[in-house]
């Protein structure tokens, strides 16, 4: 039983990591209907920049984090100026292609600026097993994973309040609902896009810090974006809680499947379980658990 709980918990914690990436996707998709393929690379780029600021410029942690946030906001501004502004009213597929381009540009930029070797990221998040959990419940959990879960929870609460209770939050939802009506009450689409890409850049930074602290900042980080895809299909592309819960289901599901079913199919279940689950959802509940049902008129 302890073993089962341990596997489940470690799955939950891994799931939180997926959720953090998925969250960035949801924000941009909600406000602009763009599927941002570059979200994973944004997490990588943010982590690279953070490490670069700390190692090469010798900045203290807090300054490096503020600096990286500034870089992500500047990046959002540039993306709006150079890319989004010129693609208004284009087909979603064209915007999607543009974000693929953006992914490669960012990856190259990160490489040029900070080099391509694997870097250690240590911003003082406690490492190793939680002794308290080990002593009290005899369960092994990484401190980092508890920290990541707490961070994700804080982030979600913060975003929920921001979306529900403030003018800018309402404006974001308004743009997501109806572009023309949003324009007619004086909401500037350009500003909203910069804000939403900035917020999702900051979410990417958080994801980058967590993944980077766990397994070092390396270019394979951008591939976790692929794991976020089944999370989104599960949770629904437009739902913030969906991203969180979807991430956890995927995390727990693939760990349990690996441990209990893996031996029968020769292992490596963890690598494809998420996609199988996503496929099943696409067949039976394409809008995901929490997404809005989209009925297209033909």
């Amino acid at each position: 039983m302890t073993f089962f709980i341990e596997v489940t918990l470690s799955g939950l914690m891994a799931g939180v990591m997926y959720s953090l990436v998925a969250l960035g996707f949801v924000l941009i998709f909600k406000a602009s209907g763009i599927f941002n393929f570059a979200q994973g690379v944004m997490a990588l780029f943010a982590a690279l920049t953070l490490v670069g600021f700390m190692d090469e410029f010798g900045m203290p942690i807090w300054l490096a984090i503020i600096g990286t946030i500034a870089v992500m906001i500047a990046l959002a501004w540039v993306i709006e100026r150079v890319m989004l502004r010129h693609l208004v009213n284009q087909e979603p597929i064209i915007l999607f292609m543009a974000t693929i381009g953006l992914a490669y540009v960012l990856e190259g930029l990160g490489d040029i600026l900070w080099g391509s070797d694997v870097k250690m990221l240590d911003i003082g998040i406690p490492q190793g097993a939680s002794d308290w959990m080990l002593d009290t419940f005899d369960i092994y959990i990484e401190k980092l994973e508890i920290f990541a879960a707490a961070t994700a929870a804080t982030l979600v609460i913060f975003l929920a309040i921001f979306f529900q209770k403030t003018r800018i939050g309402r404006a974001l939802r308004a743009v997501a609902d109806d572009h023309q009506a949003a324009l007619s009450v004086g909401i500037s689409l350009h500003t909203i896009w910069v804000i939403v890409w900035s917020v999702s850049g900051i979410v990417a930074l958080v994801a980058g810090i967590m993944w980077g602290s766990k397994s070092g900042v390396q270019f394979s980080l951008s591939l976790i974006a692929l794991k976020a895809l089944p999370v989104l299909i599960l949770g629904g592309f437009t739902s913030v809680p969906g991203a969180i819960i979807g991430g956890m289901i995927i995390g727990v599901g693939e760990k349990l499947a690996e441990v209990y079913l893996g031996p029968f199919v020769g292992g490596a279940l963890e690598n494809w379980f998420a996609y199988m689950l996503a496929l099943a959802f696409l067949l039976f509940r394409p809008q995901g658990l929490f997404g809005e049902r989209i009925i297209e008129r033909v």
Partner: protein
Amino acid sequence: MSERQLGDTILEVNNIGLSFGVMKVLDDISFDIKKGEIRSIIGPNGAGKSSMLNVINGFYHPQEGTITFKGETRKAMAPHVAASHGIARTFQNIALFKGMSTLDNIMTGRNLKMKTNIFWQALHLGPARKEELENREAAERIIDFLDIQAIRKKPVGKLPYGLQKRVELGRALAAEPELLLLDEPMAGMNSEEKEDMSRFIIDVNDEFGTTIALIEHDMGVVMDLSDRVVVLDYGKQLADGVPDEVRANQEVIDAYLGVPHE
């Protein structure tokens, strides 16, 4: 309605021409709107009425002509410029934020009245919270005015059509506009709902002194409410004048009833 004293010109469109490709949607349209009046734009389907409103609030940029609003002449408006200078509107096919509550829709209408920056907003503290409360009061006043207290928290997508139209009017009023553009505010309503809406339009005009440009198909309503009426047909301007003049105009009668073309 008796002849009223009209104010200065608030909006003037001159020789507006708008085409989509080879299709001429508006051809040499010129009229003005005076402060405090209710000005109707009428015409058969496809006459270019909605296009005209879209030109005024900046959704469409005409190829020819100029728009003078509050003394400033432009080739075209930008939607957020129009909004920030005091033009608000409703839409023919209701364009509410469907996922949001009535209150949130109306609060969104106050977007331009709220100024605190994103840092205060993100913290949801200090000036941002105070501003939120003040604007919430203004929104509540509009909710009282339109008598929609009961649906304050309901998501608007689930409301009946007539109420959605009313919420949309509320969102436009929330901006405290100087010029309010109403695109068929009574389309699809029964006579009771039409009466309510007419009363709201008159009250808005009377109590707040809001200038109103109105597109409407119900001729009874138009002739009752309007100070002056401009008539469009196939993108051309047929007539412009007080209701009685327009009603007596032979070209207008022909356009509405149809005449055999020689």
